[in-house]
């Protein structure tokens, strides 16, 4: 009986740990998706004229991106050692091999956001802001984002 309990609880713990790790990977993925939703789903679409320019939406998108970027270092603190199930992209293990370098890519993104915040007034200035921010995002994605399939 005791033995069964130990076996069962070990299995449960193990399953729990796996779930937790998947949960971490999902949180990391969700944070990136949340940024992408604003960056591509709103800002980029407006720069391309696919949706009309909307000052309030722009200000909100920039504020959300700023808030999300501030969470990156913390959200990526733990290596989940697995990818989100069926994900197309994932985080490279290099993130945790050189976490300091990974973290050092964040302040330039924040600076790009602060530089443009409150100065976007039309499609032209939005486009400039989009490129400035996106280039800093991709500086990091070049090394730390991996296409999985």
């Amino acid at each position: 009986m005791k033995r069964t309990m130990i076996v069962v609880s070990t299995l449960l713990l193990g399953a729990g740990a796996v779930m937790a790790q998947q949960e971490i990977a999902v949180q990391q993925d969700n944070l990136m998706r949340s940024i992408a939703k604003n960056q591509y789903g709103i800002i980029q679409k407006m720069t391309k004229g696919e949706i009309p320019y909307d000052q309030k939406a722009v200000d909100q998108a920039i504020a959300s991106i700023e808030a999300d970027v501030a969470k990156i270092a913390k959200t990526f603190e733990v290596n989940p050692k697995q990818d989100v199930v069926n994900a197309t992209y994932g985080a490279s293990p290099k993130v945790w091999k050189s976490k300091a370098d990974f973290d050092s890519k964040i302040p330039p993104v924040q600076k790009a956001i602060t530089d443009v915040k409150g100065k976007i007034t039309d499609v032209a200035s939005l486009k400039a802001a989009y490129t400035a921010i996106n280039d800093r995002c991709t500086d990091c994605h070049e090394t730390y984002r991996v296409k999985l399939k």
Partner: protein
Amino acid sequence: MLRRTLLAAVLVAVAAFGVYWWLTAPAALAVPLPSRAPDLANGQEIFNVGGCSSCHAVPNQPDRLRLGGGLPLGSPFGTFYAPNISPDPTDGIGRWRETDFVSAVMRGVSPEGTHYFPAFPYASYHVVELDDVRDLFAYLKTLPAVPGRVRDHDLPFPFNIRRNVGIWKLLFMDSQPFVPDAARSPQWNRGAYLVNGFGHCAECHSPRNLLGGIITAQRFAGGPNPAGEGWVPNITQKGIGEWSEKEIADFLETGEMPEGDSASGAMRPVIKNLAQLTPEDRAAMAAYLKSLPPVDGPTPPKRKQGGA
């Protein structure tokens, strides 16, 4: 009897070695190079199509024109270190003759007459036009000389034997020049030339066999990243069939995908190069890529195992 057997064995070995030596002889490209005024603007365009900077620029510094080399390039056969191709006379290619450069780019043969490893994509470059190579050489000469010799490649036996590359070339390298398809537009042909030649897109976007040769039937159909982690996407119409020609051209300029995302990984530096091209050349590449028939690539692994 024993002596005779031994003698026969030695003779066979000598003969086999002779055949090996003959098969693997590096063949430089000896063509007459009549003097001509180089077109530096074309040389720069070729430099950017070829993405020379992505491998040969000194890593971890911002200037993509400092071609001092040193970038490690992982592969299943060991780690290659991109050499210095700046005009430095001792550590770079400052003392090279034009014929040396042509042989290096189009045949993968060094000025000393040895094979280069195919990490240097001469298996693609062999189709290019001589004048483009000459313009590229002239352009490289205008860039800053960067001192510093790059370390040797780190390859285990038997991959470290350059002579073996001769066999690889026999198996996997074609030496036919680019033949335009008369049934297609000049734009398409320009695109085919750029994508298959200097662009060397297929080098990453195709699966490879055990010996590192491109699997021809699945050319451009993507596969595992030869340099390590992750997956290189299928760029036949199977993979990007939903992208319009214009969207492909835009992607080559900005790295932005129609589905609302940006290129990442090793494609990022490629975009930095392609962004410098004339819009006409990007449009030509897009026209050609859009014409690639859909081909199924290998299946990506279900899920990455532990990431430590």
